């Protein structure tokens, strides 16, 4: 394969000392992992071939097959609607009061698709190429190609549902460009694309609920996975209103439960976003892949004080017209920005990355902002002694395009900014700072989106496969909908073709075990009667994660974090205070379960970060950088997916490596200069 030249071959030894493994004491090496479903042959034919080979299920039999879907965000709602339509018997769950409220609703910027409506050179291959490159060559080639391939169908589907995308005067769809790419392929609905896409999927789902093919369980939280005779066969859920612990059995289980960015406490995720569904499955044998890959988003509103419960993102599309700068001189940092002369401003992204400028990918923009603030050139209020903010300035854009045009494009974001900060961004530059936003890690899945537990499928942000070490803007929505509308329905039928599976009863030992573990946990939290609130533990965990496993990570920091987290876990189980009862709505109890799982996940994230002695994407290892401070990857040693197997509490997790190989694309060191 002559075209799979790795950066490693270009610089055979890398800069790290080959045999040294600083994570060695923290994990057990496992057998390599291969994706048995990965198709071969020319990349453009792989998905067509897989679809054709997938076995069919006769319509009359579909009714007899049951599917549980946990999560009704873009990934879950689209899957539930499609599988319901196909005639399967679907049950779906979410923790909110309505599927319309899933976290996907908050996505602002847009959704990519290789439509080439702008005739600017876009194609399926280019979207594929940009996504693999953007993910720093740590995603799976076949999966990403498929994503690019079905992207065009997504737009057709959404338009048919009545999603009101932005249009041009001729009545055709409009596009814009997003961070990290040079073509306009992003479809959008003002700054509320996620909302409109989710409402489309939600309406399709409600239609199936009315038709009786899907039953919806709102305010129900999945707390355990049932694995019977080696297969995923159901879940234990708690009715969050009555506290009833319920058993739901099915032939197959799909997790579409979203990402775990809330492990950092402060993030742009919704308050309820959690890792519980995925983590409980992990403890039952599903491998967790690349857990340390976190995306930090550069354009969030800076932290204002310790009361803060979450951070707010402002769409990255702002970087199309806003210019990012900080004062050249520290002495100017507390001045009114309008009084700082042009020559005293450092437009650092334009200076360092002249060809991409303010549109460099998120990881680069984020780290550059952190660097200038660490140098003491940040702006805005001091929090804990440091100013953590940079200007995002629209003065030029307002002069060039006029205030109305700017208001038309970004008005709702400007209003939101003004509401939160109390400042008017039309007259004073906005202040932004990076925040945790998205996780590229998640449960390991094969090409069929099936986890290491047969019968457990994972879609959307909850799986790991498509974004590598860094996600380009506007591609998570694309992935969620691709998985739910177009991928899973084909691959799940291949699995279901083996059914119907032998019925299991509520007295099956696996069911009894899962139920008991749920009731015992609830009982434990309600009886510890310690002194500290759940939130205080969550906050402390978040501080540890941000400090040591955030934008920049080092061996010493990560080891320290692991110790701190282990201590925190002990204390949590002995000293947490959860009031109230199980038999009514009890938000502290809900949070306690989630924080317990976040603590265990946090430890694994640090171990994963320690193992990966390279910088790539959102993961920057201080020990691995070029002379001018850019991220340095080591393809010779780390071109693999880290898939972690649970070995038990206080046991070392087992690391299985899945090698990544590229046949349709050449691995290159990323450069945006």
């Amino acid at each position, binding site marked *: 394969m002559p075209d799979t030249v790795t950066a490693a071959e270009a610089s055979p030894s890398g800069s790290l000392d080959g045999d040294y493994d600083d994570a060695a004491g923290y994990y057990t090496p496992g057998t390599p992992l291969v994706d048995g479903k990965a198709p071969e042959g020319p990349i453009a034919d792989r998905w067509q071939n897989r679809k054709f080979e997938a076995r069919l299920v006769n319509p009359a039999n579909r009714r007899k097959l049951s599917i549980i879907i946990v999560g009704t965000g873009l990934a879950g709602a689209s899957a539930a609607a499609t599988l319901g339509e196909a005639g399967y018997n679907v049950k779906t769950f979410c923790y909110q009061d309505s599927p319309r409220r899933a*976290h996907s609703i908050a996505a602002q910027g847009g959704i990519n698709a290789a439509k080439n409506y702008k005739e600017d050179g876009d194609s399926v291959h280019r979207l594929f190429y940009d996504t693999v490159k953007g993910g720093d060559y740590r995603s799976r080639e076949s999966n990403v190609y498929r994503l690019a391939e079905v992207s065009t169908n997504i737009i057709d589907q959404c*338009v048919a*549902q009545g999603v009101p995308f932005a249009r041009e005067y001729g009545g055709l769809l409009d596009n814009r460009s997003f961070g990290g790419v040079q073509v306009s392929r992003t479809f959008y609905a003002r700054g509320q694309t996620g909302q409109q896409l989710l409402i489309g999927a939600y309406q399709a789902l409600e*239609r199936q609920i009315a038709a009786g093919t899907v039953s919806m369980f709102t305010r129900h939280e999945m707390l355990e996975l049932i694995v019977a005779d080696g297969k995923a066969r159901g879940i234990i859920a708690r009715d969050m209103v009555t506290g009833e612990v319920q058993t739901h059995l099915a032939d197959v289980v799909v997790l579409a439960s979203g990402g775990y960015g809330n492990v950092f406490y402060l993030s742009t995720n919704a308050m309820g976003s959690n890792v519980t569904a995925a983590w409980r499955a992990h403890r039952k044998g599903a491998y967790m892949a690349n857990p340390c890959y976190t995306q930090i988003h550069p354009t969030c509103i800076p932290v204002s004080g310790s009361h803060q419960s979450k951070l707010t993102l402002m769409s990255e599309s702002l970087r199309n017209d806003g210019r990012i700068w900080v004062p050249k001189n520290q002495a100017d940092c507390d001045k009114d920005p309008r009084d700082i002369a042009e020559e005293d401003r450092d437009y650092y992204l334009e200076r360092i990355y002249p060809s991409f400028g303010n549109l460099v990918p998120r990881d680069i923009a984020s780290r550059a902002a952190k660097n200038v603030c660490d140098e003491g050139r940040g702006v805005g209020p001091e929090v804990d002694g440091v100013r953590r903010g940079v200007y995002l300035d629209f003065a030029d854009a307002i002069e060039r395009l006029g205030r109305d045009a700017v208001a038309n494009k970004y008005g709702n974001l400007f209003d939101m900014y003004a509401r939160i900060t*109390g400042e008017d961004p039309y007259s004073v530059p906005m202040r932004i700072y990076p925040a945790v936003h998205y996780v590229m890690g998640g449960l390991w899945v094969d090409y069929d989106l099936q986890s290491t537990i047969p019968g457990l499928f994972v879609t959307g942000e909850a799986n790991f496969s498509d974004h590598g070490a860094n996600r380009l803007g506007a591609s998570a929505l694309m992935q969620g909908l691709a998985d739910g509308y*177009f991928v899973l329905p084909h691959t799940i039928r291949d699995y279901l073709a083996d059914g119907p599976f032998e019925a299991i009863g509520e007295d099956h030992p696996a069911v009894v075990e899962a139920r008991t573990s749920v009731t015992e946990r609830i009982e434990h939290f309600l009886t510890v009667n310690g002194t500290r609130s759940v939130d205080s533990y969550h906050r402390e965990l978040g501080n540890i994660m941000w400090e040591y496993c955030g934008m920049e990570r080092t061996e010493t920091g990560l080891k320290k974090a692991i110790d701190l987290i282990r201590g925190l876990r002990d204390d949590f189980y002995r000293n947490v205070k959860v009031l109230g009862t199980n038999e*009514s709505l009890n938000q502290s109890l809900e949070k306690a379960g989630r924080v317990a799982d976040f603590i265990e996940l946090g430890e694994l994230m640090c171990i994963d970060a320690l193992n990966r002695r390279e910088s790539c994407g959102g993961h920057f290892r201080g020990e691995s950088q070029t002379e001018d401070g850019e991220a340095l990857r080591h393809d010779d040693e780390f071109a693999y997916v880290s898939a972690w197997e649970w070995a038990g509490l206080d046991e070392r997790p087992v690391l299985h490596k899945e090698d990544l190989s590229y046949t349709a694309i050449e691995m290159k060191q990323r450069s945006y200069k």
Partner: protein
Amino acid sequence: MNLTLKIWRQPDAVSAGAMHTYQLADVSPDMSFLEMLDVLNEQLNDQGEDPIAFDSDCREGICGMCGLMINGDAHGPEVTTTCQLHMRSFTDGETITIEPWRSDAFPVIKDLVVDRGAFDRIIQAGGYVSVNTGSAPEAHSVPVPKDDADRAFNVATCIGCGACVAACPNGSASLFMGAKVTHLGLLPQGQPERDERVVNMVAQHDHEGFGGCTNIGACTAACPKEIPLDVISQLNKDLRIAIKHGH
């Protein structure tokens, strides 16, 4: 700021509720209203008193999960969601009354949390376009005039929070319904089911126990997404036409 908070407490759907008074000190004007309640809840937890249940998720004004009556106004004194309301809208020493949405169609679950499942059931009655996955025509095959698309977007921004119902003296959900009917009615894709949609949604609305609209306009005044009152005229118009067509 120091505040006196009068808050509705109700242990569950069947028990009687009552107003309770709490004192809260050191409230920063930069806090959101819900962060203020978080701080109160930490205080209650420390004192061994059950924290106050209230709904929220995105805390960005987009999911529609939050919603409180604050001093008698749905979502409080500003035109926004409760999560985007900040304490700088209040003054030191103020007494703030906090209650759940009140509507027969939104039963209280606990404290400030209500059940808005009726909204989902209205959508189930017809608030969608019947299109199966996989067979959609090429997106550019049906152009939509920009003005229609923009207006459809404007009304499609309804977040389903229920403030319109809570603010309405009749407890009508006409603004919510009007927004959906107008959104889909403006697009070519929404035409085939237009008559059926409005008739079925209105029937479900009445069945859920929402009241009739008498054009008071309290709904649009409380709506965080500024859904305009004329969606209700559109709703009525579509309903008349559908009836004329024999639905």
